[in-house]
């Protein structure tokens, strides 16, 4: 159960603005794409388990298809060999999409300051929420997901078509014609 957004209520109807309604709907049904590469993936499996249930936050259906998911949870170390794959998965996701970098390795390379590890996935894709930890406790991963819920609830409907977002994507060389 979630709180209704502020609106005008009457017998048999409820009036509120469209973006608030869509914000509430989106934030409570974020379907994650668990991009689990290493140890943080096992903590995600613990988060999916019955103790720290993630489905009570709406993330009931972890899908591995980018076309059908909303949140890309990148968990674990991303090596330079893997970076094009992350970018391709990100490109295949449909708007609106959010990215969470779970763990120290995804946020900034973690303890692996080496020639083969990408020092943070924000080198290749734009990231919305960073969850620190090595590995982060399940409560922290849930906190990260709740931050994404806040972002989804308060996002304007025009943001994805606006100038600022387009400039952000261009700074990562993600141009519109690449969207598949």
């Amino acid at each position, binding site marked *: 159960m979630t709180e209704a957004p502020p609106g005008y209520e009457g017998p048999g109807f409820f009036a509120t603005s469209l973006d608030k309604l869509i914000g509430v709907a989106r934030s409570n049904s974020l379907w994650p794409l668990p991009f689990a590469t290493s140890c943080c993936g096992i903590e995600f499996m613990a988060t999916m388990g019955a103790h720290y249930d993630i489905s009570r936050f709406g993330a009931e259906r972890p899908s591995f298809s980018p076309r059908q998911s909303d949140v890309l949870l990148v968990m674990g170390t991303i090596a*330079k*060999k893997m970076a094009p794959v992350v970018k391709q998965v990100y490109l295949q996701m449909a708007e609106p999409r959010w990215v969470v970098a779970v763990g120290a390795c995804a946020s*900034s390379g973690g303890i692996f*300051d*080496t*020639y*083969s*590890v990408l*020092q*943070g996935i924000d080198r290749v894709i734009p990231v919305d929420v960073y969850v620190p930890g090595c590995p982060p406790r399940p409560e922290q991963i849930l906190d990260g997901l709740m931050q994404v819920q806040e972002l989804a609830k308060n996002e304007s409907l025009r943001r994805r078509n606006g100038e600022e977002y387009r400039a952000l994507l261009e700074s990562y060389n993600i141009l519109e014609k690449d969207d598949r």
Partner: protein
Amino acid sequence: MIDNQRLVEEIGGHFGEKVYRFEENFGILGFSTAPENLTEVVAFLKDHPVLKFNFLTDITGVHFPDNEGAELCSVYMMHSWENRIRVRIKVFLPIENPVVPSLTPLFKGANWMEREAFDFYGILYTGHPNLKRILNMEDMDYHPMRKEYALEDPTRRDKIDDLFGR
């Protein structure tokens, strides 16, 4: 019961001058041989009716930058399950031409282990079915585990060496 002394007698007795530099490190006997004798030595150990070294535990490479003429070393560890004894074979190679025969005809498991040693050190295994890089990216042009190369990526911009104590 086979012990290291018996191993020295058997191997040294059969191969004579071709095996040298016997040493015992924490219970494991090690010896060196030249690259051209490697297949013969390993086949002898594998097929011997008493020694029975049936298992190839590991193949790895080491880089000794100070040994002139023998900088790279390809290390083979074998294990005899029936006799509960291990042995280590080292083959020293010059860095200009580190060529050694591959053990894939004898042990199929040597395939990826040799690819890893090639990837990290540049040791060339002749007769290997598919000697290309396995863990690093295919277009990498240097062999990263050699001592002259740094650990960190030289092109990274966000980590300031002074602050990290380097």
